[in-house]
């Protein structure tokens, strides 16, 4: 069946590119080796758990980095100050917010989440996600809020990328075999 042959080739090409571009590493191969007729859904199961866990972790991470001081801004507007006063107040508040965010964020907690995420991504072979987590942890250790926020976005990006690719991969492999 030529169509099947072609699809199989596309599958092989696709998964090869995932390894080449470091989306996946050898640990994914190890997972595949653990799958057999007695447990034919193993990889799908593990990857699904990874997806679920990760969504939750990403939410926890986002909320732990978020500090809400927006009410201050509303208050200022309500005072109806003169333009000059408003500018000065905004500026002061901006500085205050910068300062307080550094104090308010619990970097230890954030680090804990990142550690978990690093662990689970490493266990499924999601190499890029793992590497991004490692860098994110460094920012946590430095208590660098800006770095953390930026890198969290990257971690998120990498996660959704690999999620997309894995979903495609698994869908195709289920069809073919």
């Amino acid at each position, binding site marked *: 069946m030529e169509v099947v042959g072609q699809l199989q080739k596309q599958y092989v090409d696709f998964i090869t590119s995932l390894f080449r571009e470091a989306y996946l590493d050898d640990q994914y191969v*190890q997972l595949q080796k*653990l799958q057999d007729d007695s447990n034919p859904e193993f990889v799908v199961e593990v990857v699904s758990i990874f997806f679920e866990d990760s969504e939750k972790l990403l939410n926890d991470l986002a909320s732990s980095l978020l500090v809400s001081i927006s009410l201050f801004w509303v208050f200022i507007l309500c005072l109806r100050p003169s333009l000059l006063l408003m500018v000065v107040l905004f500026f002061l508040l901006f500085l205050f917010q910068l300062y307080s965010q550094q104090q308010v964020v619990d970097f230890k907690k954030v680090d804990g989440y990142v550690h978990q995420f690093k*662990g689970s991504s490493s266990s499924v072979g999601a190499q890029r996600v793992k590497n991004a987590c490692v860098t994110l942890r460094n920012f946590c250790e430095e208590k660098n809020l800006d770095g953390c926020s930026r890198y969290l976005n990257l971690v998120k990006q990498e996660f959704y990328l690999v999620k997309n690719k894995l979903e495609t991969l698994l869908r195709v492999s289920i069809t073919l075999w």
Partner: protein
Amino acid sequence: MGSDCSSVVAEELHVLAVDDSLVDRKVIERLLKISSCKVTAVESGRRALQYLGLDGEKSSVGFDGLKVNLIMTDYSMPGMTGYELLKKIKSSSNLREIPVVIMSSEKVLARIDRCLEEGAQEFLVKPVNRSDVKRLRDIILQGYENDENKGSQKRKLQDLSPTSCFARDLTPLKSASASASSQQSCLKRPRL
């Protein structure tokens, strides 16, 4: 512990796996099953102690009848860390003989030393792979075999009567394995 004349250890080890990550529990469970081990996977040190009957609540329900031959625990867990679990097990007269393996994604030398000094059998760097598990299994089974050989020698020496089926004490290998493992994932020092 009941007495048993026959070889107690069948080819299947019963392993208690402790890890707060569901992904890791699934993977280690599969790794162990595929290496012909029976697995019980729990998500925390507290649950592990409950399973082992060590949680202080003297509920004599205790184990589900299956003796644990090996404990594999993650190091970083909320609540009770793997290290704390290790200490609790090694300070229990019932359980201290069960080999405990610590797993961690972080290769921190101080951490490794601490665990080995506290009596951990080995310290494995995650992700754990099949050859790690196979090696562990072989070491532990070898330990039982050694004990059995020792036991049978004693029988010859003492010329025991058929009624003396001594209680099997499933002590695993105590002596340090001299194997200089070339694998990067395993770090082991001889126990003093």
